[in-house]
């Protein structure tokens, strides 16, 4: 077994287990627009890895937010709603949105359900969850602390646990 960080897993194109490729691409695209840098550090691989784990080992922030497991459906339905609502508004795929269009769309979804957003958790809630996931993977690592000039001061170094994807 070789342990990889989400960024390494992304770089080596490790196959997804819980997400399909389209879902992973949507997560990376939207997540990176909300938290710049999230795609590069492997947001979709991080979420995929956590969704693949048994509940006790699933460390997604969603477990704090009164959503009972399994969590796969939460992401799947939200991503479908996201894609549908973007298409309804712009007649484009999410990947085709300009930076300005994506900013406008996120501004709407953080406040209310955009038109076409249905059969899914509320858009503002999904925004909050994905934003938190993206902050976790982008800013929750020792390297990220270092980049913010924050001393990590670990008692027990975390590199052998959540960051590792076998």
């Amino acid at each position, binding site marked *: 077994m070789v342990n990889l960080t989400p960024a390494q897993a992304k770089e080596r194109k490790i196959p997804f287990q819980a997400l399909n490729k389209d879902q992973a691409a949507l997560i990376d695209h939207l997540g990176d627009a909300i938290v710049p840098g999230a795609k590069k550090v492997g947001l979709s691989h991080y979420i995929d890895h956590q969704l693949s784990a048994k509940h006790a080992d699933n460390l997604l922030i969603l477990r704090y937010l009164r959503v009972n497991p399994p969590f796969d459906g939460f992401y799947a339905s939200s991503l479908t709603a996201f894609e549908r609502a973007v298409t309804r508004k712009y007649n484009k795929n999410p990947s085709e949105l300009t930076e300005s269009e994506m900013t406008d769309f996120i501004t709407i979804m953080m406040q209310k359900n955009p038109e076409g957003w249905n059969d899914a958790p509320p858009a503002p809630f999904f925004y909050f969850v994905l934003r*938190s996931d993206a902050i976790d993977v982008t*800013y929750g690592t020792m390297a990220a602390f270092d980049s*913010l000039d924050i001393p990590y001061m670990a008692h027990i170094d975390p590199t052998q646990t959540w960051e590792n994807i076998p």
Partner: protein
Amino acid sequence: MSAFAEKTDVVIVGSGAAGSLMAAKLSKAGKKVIILEAGPERTLNDLISSQINARRLKWSGEPVQEKGAQPIGNVFNSGYGTGGSALHHYGVWPRLHTEDFNVKSLHGRSLDWPITYDDLRPYYDKIQQEVGISGDKASEIWRPEGDDYPLPPVPIFQQSEIIAKGFKNLGKRTSPLPLALNSRDYKGRPGCLWDGWCDAGCPTKALVNPLALYLPEAKKMGARVIHDATATRILTDNSGKKAVGVKYHTKEGIEVTQMADLVILAAFAVQNPRLLLNSADGGLANRSGLVGSYIMSHAAATVFGLFDQETEPYMGATGGQLLNQDSYDHKDQRDSGFGSYQWMIAQAVKPNDLLGFGGSNPALFGKKLTEFMKRAAQHFGGMTGCVEDLPLRENRVTLSADKDKFGMALASVAHTAHADSLALWQAAKAEGVEIFKAADAVQVWNGPLGPMHIMGGTIMGDDGEKSVTNSYGQCHDIDNLFIAGSGLFPTSGGVNPTFTVHALSLRSSEYIVKNWSSLT
């Protein structure tokens, strides 16, 4: 498949703050003690410094269904595995105030405790000597009578100094926050390094979690902890007036009958009533009909700001560095609402997680978020108001129609805060903003209402028709069945509950030892 375990003197359900302390004291008194812990075994080596790993310590047992306008946040506020929620608690240990014990007598509303502050004071004093609280009694002018803290106060970092000026400029006072966290070496446990990893569990034992003190003591005296053991039923004799043991399921699916002379439920405020309600038609020890009622959760009033000065927001303890209780006593003299609150000032924060500075302002995204993260890493400040939650009978744990894998009904918890508690929370938030402005914050904002701590559900009282247990946690209906922990609280006060949980558990332990013959 089923099995019978050898009978023991005491079986305790739950290995958290209350369970581990009572196991230590009863073992020391010569009792054979078995602790049933629903979650997995955890050791100090599992307490990894990461806000993401920290989530592993939180509740991941059977789902709890939450309802109401202000749900209690069971997963975040509960623990799972050795040490329960105390394994990830922040060690903020103020005492309840005298007024908290007789709110109904004084104000004609809320509830009374069956004891006074004076009854509990010796136990607060004993516990703080055993554990080692850091603080400064002289400057903590709001504190009720009691011994001096055994350890000097925790150090003050820049974030505290900056925010304290805001309090001072408005004529308000601050003192060191009393923390069950060593400001220097104490009884073989080291001083804290002020790294702010309390939420992830403290592996150095500077913060007194159950793995640092009471569980090792209990084990040394012969107590045994059985992990992955989910209690499903309290067993009674044919009369229903005497507890004879507990049924539990192992991870492998074996149903074990553990007979015992005395049973203690220390599985926290939600799972204790769930177990009682599942143990008999209409609930065990439920003459009052109040098993599950009066669930409370403090409303967290969060205030955040950015300052021109560098604040070192990563330094210190997760619970904070300074305290203000100017709005605590005289619960009826608030400008708005009713009750007490305190400020815990200058919490050490990390970039990520619910309590991280990245989550403090969810409206920020894209480039603005990137700029904010860089600035906040060095210039962020925060404080949290712990706002009293008035007890309401309709805020309660009931049984869901849904069942777990053992056929046990899940817990459903409804919680909607009293209008006066919400008004007090609003007033606290507004005061916090004024304080930060007076500290020259260049930006100030509030967070949404967050539930903090869980209390009630099996309240104590003198009257068996109006409460579940007496002041020792002894069930009114079953002499040898005890309940321990914050579920006993009839009122929440506006302080963190863990010190009081320890004091009550010590008092109950001494009562059990003294009255063992008549109880069993």
